[in-house]
């Protein structure tokens, strides 16, 4: 296989995996799932680091640093906010029955 074909293969298989893994999600989890998926594409931070770390001129360095800041906001903020949401889903389970009996 040529290089291009390898990449294309990975891409097509990933499409199917992407749809398959979330196909049974309930509407309850749509918001956290969207937020979590949103965090995952923040991995462009890796790309920003790779490019910026190998750049030479000052203008490109500045642009690269801006890209790193933006990507880090996406990646870190995304995972933290998703965790904050999901925390609320799990936390109440033990507390709930007691409250109801009061």
């Amino acid at each position, binding site marked *: 296989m040529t290089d291009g074909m390898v990449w294309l293969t990975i891409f097509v298989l990933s499409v199917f995996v992407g749809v398959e893994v979330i196909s049974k999600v309930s509407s309850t989890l749509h918001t956290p799932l969207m937020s979590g998926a*949103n*965090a*995952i*594409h923040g*991995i462009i931070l890796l*790309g920003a680091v790779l490019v910026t770390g190998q750049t030479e001129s000052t203008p490109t360095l500045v642009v690269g640093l801006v890209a*790193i800041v933006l990507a880090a906001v996406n990646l870190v903020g995304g995972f933290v906010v998703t965790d904050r949401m999901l925390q609320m889903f799990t936390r109440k389970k033990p507390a*709930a029955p007691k409250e109801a009996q009061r």
Partner: protein
Amino acid sequence: MSAVPTWAQLVYLLCAVGFILALKGLSGPRTARTGNLIGAGAAAVAVVLPFVYLDLDHLPLIIGAIALGSLGGVLGARRVQMTQMPQMVALFNGVGGGAAALVALLELEELGHLPASAVGTFVLVATAFTVLVGSVSFAGSVITFAKLQDLMTSRPVVFAGLPVAFAAALVGSLVLGWLVVDATLLWAGVALGVMGLLVGVLLVLPVGGADVPIVISLLNAFTGLTVAAGGYVLGNVVLLVAGTLVGASGTFLTLLMARAMGRSVPNILFGALKGNSTLGAGEASDRPVRSAGPEDVAILLGYADRVIIVPGYGLAVAQAQHTLRELVELLQARGTRVDYAIHPVAGRMPGHMNVLLAEAQVPYEQLVEMDEINGEFKHTDVVLVVGANDVVNPAARTTPSAPIYGMPILDVDQAQQVVFLKRSMRPGFAGIENELLFDPRTTLLFGDAKESLTKLLSAAKAL
């Protein structure tokens, strides 16, 4: 790209698998939190990796930039209120798209120094794609943020030349994209990014407030695909896999949401352009309604055997979830059967209401999804609609010209009595009047949801 050592490639592969597991986990209620943590772990490892196997320049600056962005992200994520979650997701998505576009521009600059024969056409196509779609995602997200944050009107913005301008921007993008691919011109790439911003703005302006969440989800998928293309350009498998996963699952999720709202994605995006998405009045009506005081409503609830609560975004805005839970617990203690009916798009985005009620520690067994509870309204004495409007509007069944026509709704009009807690007679997010408000079986209790519920609670206690 310089050669990546085999061990690092293996670690990248593990990170890619980590993202698959993360998405898998996120789609189940019990595994969701673990899934998210796996994703965060995989991301952390993947980002640290190039520092280990590569000799990167500008290390202090890079680490400083990561720290700055992380700090901003954490502060935003910690401070945001749960009601503002859709805006937050839009914002995070936008900056991700913007970052991807910038990365692609830098790579284009790099490619411009190489002899033309050394650069593959597909790499340039992917670069142009990343610049364009990343910018679209950035600008589109900024507009959705402005709409949700009330920085601008949430109603569709349409002007006479909009379809022409949109078409022109698309043609301009194609021409500039061709220049990028054909001649590796950096200025064309920058212009392409600017054009992408224009396309993004023009794409989202005509979208009405109620449809904005679907657009956020779609732009999320766009950013995913952008990152995937960026991965191909940089020859990095993690970016390719992670981006594609988000692109594919995001597209699928967008379709799921659109189906839950009874809308089609093309119609959401281009409906207002074609002029078949009639806009509602957007103003308060002066037709007569029956309003009542908290005591009357408390009596109504007090003597009911079966009550269903329909919570909406207005409840969350007033931060009245806790008061509502107290009221429900009081009624339950007196032997009334009470459930919450949760419309799939209650709140401002699918699943948003579940998050908001979870925050108020409402036991999730009491949250009943639409399909399960719709048959129950016939046997229900009182339905209490708190700050919801569009999701109970019968216009979705009866008025083909309404923007929400075809959306499955909660059949509250089949109940014996309906009580609306409303701030005013202004229509909901979709901007259309609700006939149910004028029904003889409907009672309105005007006021801020929190104040009304507090009065209702003390009146119910006094019974």
